[in-house]
């Protein structure tokens, strides 16, 4: 069924290509008659048809001709996390629930299970007051399923006409929960959820700045965060609560993670509703054209093609510099949830997340001031999950082609920060890698330090 749907989507896309070649006036007329269909392009001429199908600040970019993207079909049922995941998801529907704090607990014992994988709450009822937090946990556990990661990411500060500055980050994530059973860590004495190391590799004045974070599964336990500061040659404890602050003056913060990386228990969540929207998707993942290299020590590396994926990377591009030029748009049904931080020092007073109803991927993350004013809007391109070459594991995270980008736009300041991946074979974009827990020890920071 999935393959059929994809074939249909590809057919629609190719038909759309024919339509693009037709007279622009005809296309506009047709669009007005049938709405935005796969194969059409969303741009200034068709933006009116996307009203209500995009966050308003994103739609404005299309209206002004600052964004331009092709529309593709992503029908329901396309993409998979594999049979193990699906089977466990079914079991979870019967066995898991939430406690008062919003922590996942076993229905029978009322305690947090030692290990969780699969979608914890596949059946979300909009009338359930705990629906929003269930949606959020579903997002997280679908993400964790993709295994440990190692990525070298360029963080680029972008103004409307070009890049202001760039910083290279070498990032490792290790997960202790949500992984396929064969990848489950043998023990977890600290009851960790995840650990990360992020080392700045450029520019030279920041080189060697390395952050280490531990996140615990315990709902009340704050993260532990340290950083090695080369200018001091010391490891300094950092505030685990400072997760909303733009990194080095950028518009991207720790809680932006791969879409959202806050601790669910740190917010009060509310379900706003559900809607159909155009999500940014990766054309290569949609077409199942990912270049995956099996790593000798285990895991897979995604090698990205050298194509411009953001406006500033394309000399011909006339729109805003952070526009996702390679991305496509797919119409999907999403949940909209709203989180109000419990920490009054959190920079934003409200977060609004759009999460896919079928595969629980995040699409748009909007951040509002404590007065309710929209300040920041971020988007991430993803695609359907596909099996990996070993036939056992599945990858559903991010793109694998031209849209390896996460865009965080500062709506008030007319600027953005993007996280993008270098299209080089020797640059790590690795998943399902084995990471020794000792790599995330406090002591390890000294090794990263000069």
């Amino acid at each position, binding site marked *: 069924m999935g393959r059929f749907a994809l074939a249909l989507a590809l057919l629609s896309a190719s038909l759309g290509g024919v339509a693009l070649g037709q007279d622009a006036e005809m296309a506009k007329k047709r669009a007005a008659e049938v709405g935005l269909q796969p194969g059409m392009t969303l741009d200034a001429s068709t933006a009116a048809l996307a009203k209500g199908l995009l966050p308003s600040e994103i739609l404005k970019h299309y209206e002004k001709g600052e964004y331009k993207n092709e529309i593709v079909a992503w029908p329901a049922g396309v993409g998979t996390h594999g049979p193990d995941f699906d089977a466990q998801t079914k079991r979870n529907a019967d066995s898991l629930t939430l406690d008062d704090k919003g922590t996942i607990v076993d229905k029978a014992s009322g305690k947090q299970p030692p290990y969780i994988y699969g979608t914890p709450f596949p059946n979300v009822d909009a009338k359930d007051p705990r629906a929003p937090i269930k949606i959020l946990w579903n997002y997280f556990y679908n993400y964790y399923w993709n295994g440990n990661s190692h990525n070298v990411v360029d963080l680029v500060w972008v103004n409307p006409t070009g890049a202001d500055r760039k910083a290279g980050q070498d990032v490792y994530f290790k997960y202790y929960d949500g992984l396929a059973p064969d990848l489950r860590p043998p023990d977890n004495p600290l009851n960790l959820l995840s650990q990360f190391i992020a080392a700045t590799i450029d520019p*030279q004045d920041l080189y060697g700045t390395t952050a280490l974070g531990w996140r615990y599964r315990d709902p009340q336990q704050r993260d532990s965060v340290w950083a090695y500061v080369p200018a001091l*040659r010391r490891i300094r*404890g950092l505030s685990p609560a*400072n997760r909303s602050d733009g990194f080095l003056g950028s518009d991207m913060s720790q809680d932006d993670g791969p879409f959202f990386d806050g601790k669910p228990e740190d917010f009060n969540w509310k379900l706003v509703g559900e809607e159909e929207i155009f999500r940014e998707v990766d054309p290569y993942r949609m077409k199942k054209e990912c270049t995956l290299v099996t790593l000798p020590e285990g895991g897979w590396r995604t090698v990205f093609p050298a194509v411009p994926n953001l406006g500033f990377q394309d000399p011909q591009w006339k729109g805003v510099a952070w526009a996702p030029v390679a991305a496509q748009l797919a119409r999907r049904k999403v949940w909209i949830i709203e989180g109000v931080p419990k920490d009054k*020092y959190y920079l934003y007073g409200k977060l609004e997340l759009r999460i896919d109803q079928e595969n629980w991927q995040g699409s748009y993350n909007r951040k509002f001031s404590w007065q309710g004013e929209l300040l920041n809007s971020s988007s991430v391109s993803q695609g359907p999950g596909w099996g990996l070459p070993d036939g056992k594991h599945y990858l559903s995270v991010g793109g694998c082609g031209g849209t390896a980008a996460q865009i965080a736009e500062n709506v008030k300041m007319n600027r953005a920060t993007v996280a993008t991946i270098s299209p080089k074979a*020797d640059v790590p974009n690795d998943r399902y890698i084995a990471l020794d827990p000792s790599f995330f*020890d406090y002591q390890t920071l000294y090794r990263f330090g000069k």
Partner: protein
Amino acid sequence: MNRMRRWGKVGALAAFGIVAATSRATAMFLDEARLFKLTALFYTQERIAIESSEGPEGINGGGTQPPVGVGQLKQMRNLANPVLEGNLNRFIGTEWFLKDFSFRFAGRFVYDGIYDFGSGQYARGLRAYTQAARFMLRQDSGTVQAPGPAPIFQGDKPVERVEFDAGGVPRFTRPCGTFPFPFSPICPAGDPNVRAARIRDQEIFDPRKEFAEQAEAWEVYLNLAKGPLFVRIGRQNLSWGESDGQRLLDDINPLNRFFGLPFDEDLDEQRIPLWMLRANLQIISALGPLSSTGLEGFWVPGFIDTTQNPFNIGGNHPYAPPAGCDPQLIANAQARSNTGGTLNPGCLPATGGLIPDGTIKTVIYERLPPQNINNSRFGARIVGVLLRDYTFSLGAYQSYADIPQPRVHYTDLLSIPVGPPLPQPFLLPSNVVAEVTHGKETILGGTLSFFQPNYLPGVVRAEAGYFMNEPAYVDIANKGVVPTVPDILAGTTPFLDTFVPKADYVRWVFGYDVFQLNIPIISRTNNVVLINQWFAEYNLSSTDRYEKLLAAHVPASIRDPDRAVFAYGQPQPDRVRNSLGEEVPKLTPIPRFNSLGNNTLQAFMMHGLLVPQITFVWSPQGWFSVLPNVTYRLRDDLLIKVGYSGIYGKFYAGGFFRDRDQIGVRLSYLIS
């Protein structure tokens, strides 16, 4: 050494050239597999005085020499810091055996044009200093030297040999015999051959080499990791502790404090790497309340490296502490006034008297620890995480004190013909050697840091250490007593068997870092960072011994309220008004308790391109400092920083630099 200097200049000029080229730069990988990477930092930094120097109040100190006027150049520092790093593990193919096998090779080339450009006073001072030093080396026969600045010599030979008897009582072996402590007679007229032999093994301290021209392999080390063990071997820096911008517990690497004002320069650039073996062993991953806990140790073999903090009290460098008048001028003036002459204000030579200038020679001798295993630095600590929230460390180590202490040797006695009622003949030491020693100390201490989530959440940092046997200064012990004629008439007797006292200190720092402070007018989506620290120390040692010494030798001084207070540390002259309303120098002793605070506020503006920062430093002892600066990132690889440094208040500690307010600009070019 000349070759090194030339290379220093070449490196710095290369930095200029590259900056001038202003092409965007990225890291240079030297191989296809990107295992070997070359990065670099180049900067040029110029600083200009915005206030004129205060002159010395009297021959005993205060003020800055040589004086600098508003608008004059104080620094023209150029630095090139190329860094080659490589992954040998993959290159050699040892990945199957080692977790890490890598290296870092960082060169450092410095050229400061202060002796070659600008208004010339430093060049003149250096020339006079060098001439005086070379003259003294030649004049080892005891003849009278020409007046000039006191030279600084360096060596590791003792000025006098000190032995200890079975009861631990020191005995000083001098050219003329061996004498018990504490009242040895001074030698008769100096033996020029003995003095010549002592001087022969010394080097002239060269401020240009030390501060203005360097070309060194700065950091050279290998990293090795296998299982839970990580080893770094080579020339490296090591920092322990929790403080920011200054240090308390990590008194491991020596610091070069001579290229900027206090708190105004990067601590990391001040650190001087040492040849060191350092290891880190993870012992507990998670056990009970402990997690991620390991042992860390270091050893700087004394037979390889006993490098010390550069020392400079000569008035030939813009950031040397104020030493008042030159020691040679003081000696000349004291000798004249002792024999009927007249002291003149400031640093003007004394007039009259019987003793010509230069009869008493003064030398500053920085005695460096000889290279042997006993002079090793070493230590160990345990560091880890307690109850998942508290990062702690406990350690002990032996190192060298940050501040060297002087001990004045009086040698080569001259017989001065004076009349009654003074004793006949009146003896005067004609060769005064101020020996500056770098003493070892033992430090025990610990650190703790944790996040405080309640009101104004932030990170609490704390360090505390017990510093044992730190070399100290007590006027009568380090300097001794050489009575003037009026002193003798008042009952003062000489005390010439000087020594460097030892003291125990408790020091601590409390820090509180706030990361979640938002100032919307600066940025609604970026917080400011507020770093706060309070350093303090308390001297635990008794002063009984020194009170007794003073009572025995200088009974009259006990009645002088300004000199009656004993203290460890160099009493500093400051200006006070006397009962007639005149400004006169006053000696301010260092109290047992000292403290210092600083607050730094940093913001990110204009999308992180503009980073303003302001630091306040304050001392309850009456001085404070304001250090604002702003850095603008012109490009990823090109930064400009403009800053002001102002110090105000009492002439004490950091306040010694209160007449050196300056503005500066730094242009940095990075190869990333």
